[in-house]
């Protein structure tokens, strides 16, 4: 095979990986602050994807233009979830939170199944078959837009946590729960905001991902697993780690699909995860485990 093929596959994997990364940033933000592992993460992503499809088919709204509105919708959903049902569980043991979110995931998957049926859905935009020629490379236009949107959103989120007073307050909650309470922060509200922000990442990532993959209700659990792999690889609770993990997993899956059968590609992601867990359990960019 000529070298261009490898390069093409690698670039394509990298761009898809960026979208995965944005989804994983959401999971990482939620875990980093609220200390709850969102087992319904991929399922929430499919909600966003179906919303994008409905908006596109019903009103002709381009999924890329819907990134911000859908992020807002998912933000509201996430805020309500945290304020309504997850907040009482933050002091309960992990398995209890796990069951709660698994139940939420079960409801989401099956409501989608009732509403949309089991068939795969996708969107066909006017630029679906466009591509850019960069030297020897042929890059799908959709993937470039998707990757670019992801980079912009992730940068905005970084800036928010770094500079905005609200972002700083949320980081304070993550660093020291009791300390945050002492200085008078409304921790429950901030937790709900954080979960909302994590869900907003998913909303944005979902409306972008809908351009790249077909969606079925069963995609939700698969995306949840993918988000776990990425976040653990990059470091649970670390935002740059989530992006790095997303890119790594995107590259791994793309190249594994090229060298081996595509159906076995996620085996390599799991292999990578196992290696990371064994030799660097805190993840590539994670802080040391206490």
């Amino acid at each position: 095979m000529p070298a261009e093929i490898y390069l093409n596959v690698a670039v394509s994997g990298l761009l898809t990986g960026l979208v995965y990364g944005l989804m994983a940033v959401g999971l990482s933000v939620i875990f980093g602050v609220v200390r709850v592992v969102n087992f319904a993460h991929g399922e929430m992503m499919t909600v966003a994807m179906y919303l994008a499809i409905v908006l596109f088919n019903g009103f002709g709204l381009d999924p890329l233009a819907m990134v911000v509105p859908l992020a807002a919708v998912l933000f509201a959903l996430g805020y309500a979830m945290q304020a309504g049902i997850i907040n009482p569980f933050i002091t309960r043991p992990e398995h209890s939170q796990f069951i709660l979110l698994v139940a939420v995931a079960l409801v989401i998957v099956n409501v989608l199944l009732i509403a949309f049926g089991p068939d795969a859905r996708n969107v066909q935009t006017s630029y679906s078959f466009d591509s850019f020629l960069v030297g020897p490379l042929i890059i799908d236009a959709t993937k470039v837009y998707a990757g670019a949107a992801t980079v912009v959103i992730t940068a905005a989120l970084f800036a928010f946590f770094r500079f905005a007073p609200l972002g700083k307050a949320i980081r304070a909650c993550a660093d020291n729960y009791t300390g945050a309470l002492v200085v008078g922060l409304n921790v429950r509200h901030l937790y709900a905001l954080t979960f909302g922000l994590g869900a907003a990442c998913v909303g944005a990532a979902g409306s972008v991902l809908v351009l790249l993959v077909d969606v079925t209700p069963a995609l939700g659990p698969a995306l949840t697993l993918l988000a776990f792999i990425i976040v653990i690889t990059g470091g649970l609770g670390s935002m740059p780690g989530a992006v790095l993990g997303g890119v790594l997993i995107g590259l791994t899956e793309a190249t594994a699909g090229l060298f081996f059968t595509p159906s076995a590609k996620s085996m390599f992601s799991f292999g990578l995860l196992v290696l990371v867990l064994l030799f660097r359990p805190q993840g590539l960019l994670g802080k040391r485990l206490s």
Partner: protein
Amino acid sequence: MIGRLFDGVPRRGLVLLAGLLVVLLAAPWIANDYLLTVLIIVLYFAYTGQAWNVMMGFAGQLSLGHAIYVGLGGYAAAALYVHFGIAPWLGLAAAIAIAMTCGAIIGFLAFRFGVGGVYFAILTIAFAEFARIGFDHFTWVGASSGFFLPVANYTRNDLWNLRGNPTMFYYLMLALTIAAFALCHILLKSRVGYYWQAIREDEVAARSLGIDTFRYKMYAVVLSAGMTAVAGVFFAFYYNNLFPEQVFHISRSIELILGPIIGGIGTLFGPLIGAFLLTGLSEAMQELLTALGFDAPGAKQVFYGLCLLAVVMALPGGVWPWLAAKLGVNGRRS
């Protein structure tokens, strides 16, 4: 030994237990075919739930990938039977050995490198998914198109080759459940059981008391894996088919652990109560929705999920501790 089994159990509890046992023993004569099938599923989940409980409920190690042991056990015994004609009772030994080895590998890797909590749980998912995709490409046992056993001859029961009618499988599963129950009861009151509970409550404190936490966590994982593999062998010979997408799927791992969590984690009766409640709930939902003429695919799971939410929000410790207090049988905590 038998006497020791009933130490510290209140009299009222013994009576209730005996009553339950009589009902379960008599069930094949009372129940119709449908109900018997449901009861087999209940016992299957009670047994696997108990096996999982050893690891999580007793020793505090959260496994979300127990389907791997069911799958390995089932595939090992089924492959030996189909390819070499080795009877399942001999295949069982191989199945247990393979699952225990797998459990030991996961446990060794995780505990040696200090992987715990959420990270350990996700490591177990990773191994199960790895196995799922691996078996999807493992042509010796049918890969993704499934592995089939010759269909059972229902007219004659052949206990040695596990070919027979549902009643035989029912009693087999009942015997397994009772055995697992007795084993866990003894374990909980043994030195190992107390070490496990100490590790569950506070691992650092347990280690500072001189407990070799690595070794006892390994015991819990390996025992739990072996017990689960037995259920896998049963599963393979009862259903006569194995598909990697179903057997190793994460939803199977979740299904398996819902019972003990809903029933009451770390309790002896939790897995049993949970299995009865969840399977009963699931079947009742089906009946109800069919009767209402609303049987869209997924409707059952939506209601199931909502009920799960309600239970986990209302009874954080599970149903059994609450029920035991109501029945007045919660003598010593066990």
